[in-house]
């Protein structure tokens, strides 16, 4: 079974040289730490920045420089700032190659729910609806089951949707799966020490298992 770092490391393997990537809050943010040295990847922050650098050294925080998670960050050579309209313009125009975000639920046709639990507090969708509606390639980083032990990979989402038919891939503590609308969750890899049976038991939506399912390779 993977921990959060493991999930981030596995997702980092999906990043390709030359990608512009938008990372959501939580596990996705960790992915930045595991992008191989020498690979040219630029991080987009939807509040208006390309070329997001690491957290500042203590005492060097700049209140005018934050990411979409409102964390203080830094710039790097090649950084560009722009306004929110251009930021979502480039997202909508498909210029961001990969979006990695968390989810509460994903359905077997790629619908995603990650912004609202009715009856509980509603914080708002922020940029998530824009990102999932526009990105060519969306990878969800999440736990396979929720705190109540219920599968988050469902035939259909039960929570209010963030977007429809948009998630391409899911990486959980148990598995890597492709999401193919009309087909289901296609199991690609098992986490170290996890059996196909365990993944089956944790997946409520249609799970496609073809041939031998390899174990993930993670450093």
């Amino acid at each position, binding site marked *: 079974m993977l921990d959060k770092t493991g999930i981030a490391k596995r997702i980092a393997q999906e990043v390709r040289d030359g990608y512009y990537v938008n990372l959501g809050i939580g596990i996705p943010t960790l992915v930045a730490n595991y992008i191989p040295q020498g690979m040219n990847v630029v991080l987009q922050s939807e509040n208006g920045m390309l070329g997001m650098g690491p957290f500042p050294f203590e005492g060097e925080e700049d209140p005018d420089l934050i990411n979409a998670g409102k*964390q203080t960050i830094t710039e790097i050579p090649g950084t560009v700032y722009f*306004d929110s*309209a251009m930021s*979502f313009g480039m997202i*909508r125009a498909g210029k961001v190659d990969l979006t990695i975000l968390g989810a509460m639920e994903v359905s077997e046709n790629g619908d995603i729910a990650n912004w609202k639990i009715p009856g509980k507090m509603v*914080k708002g*969708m922020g940029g998530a609806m824009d990102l999932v509606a526009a990105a060519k390639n969306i990878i969800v980083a999440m736990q396979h089951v929720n705190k109540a032990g219920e599968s988050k990979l469902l035939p259909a989402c039960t929570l209010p949707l963030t977007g429809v038919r948009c998630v391409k891939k899911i990486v959980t503590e148990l598995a890597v799966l492709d999401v193919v609308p009309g087909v289901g969750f296609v199991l690609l890899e098992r986490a170290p020490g996890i059996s196909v049976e365990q993944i089956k038991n944790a997946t409520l939506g249609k799970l496609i298992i073809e041939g031998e399912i390899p174990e993930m390779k993670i450093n």
Partner: protein
Amino acid sequence: MNKVVSGADEAIRDIEDGMTLMLGGFGLCGIPENCIAALVRKGVKNLTCISNNAGVDDFGIGLMLKTRQVKKMISSYVGENAEFERQLLSGELEVELIPQGTLATRCLAAAYGMPAVFVRAGVGTEVAEGKEVRNFDGVDYLLEHAFNAPFSIVKAWKADTHGNLVFRKTTRNFNQPMAMAGKIVIAEVEELVPAGALDPDQIHVPGIYVHRVFKGENYEKRIEQRTVRAKS
């Protein structure tokens, strides 16, 4: 073309009860601190605020929530605010949640004289309820309308006396499109310079969009999430 006013109180003098205001900033980054303070001083009520966020309990728009001056928030993300939550659950406050890119683009539409735009965000979700859906080349889009607000209040880094604005780093956010979207645009800035002192190639918002500018005071620039790394 002198757009300079004496300060925040003069800048917001004709904002009245029940009006709709656009307020720039993302989180607490690049918010018009001086104008918010002046709105609290003036005590105008029943405001509708179009702003990506709603501040925190004791800073930003949170200050206007505390004094119950806000009737409705039109935002994309309103977490981080306990007083907000209380007013929302008690029914004192209305909230309309809009995807962040749609929010920005409805500002841009107003700025560029487009009555409405088509966006994909929200298709198939509750955001689409009651909205026109239109298919272009096999993809569904929602028709979203330009904002139509009498006032925009933004924070810029520098302005010249003509109202030409320059922003710094990620404070540009919603400040730039909102500075072009309101019928009357008020900009508070850290540095006010004579016309001609800014590089004409490097102005983010041309002064034609801006009606009042003033040099703000005592910027706190509070940091919402102070994240740092250790010096190695």
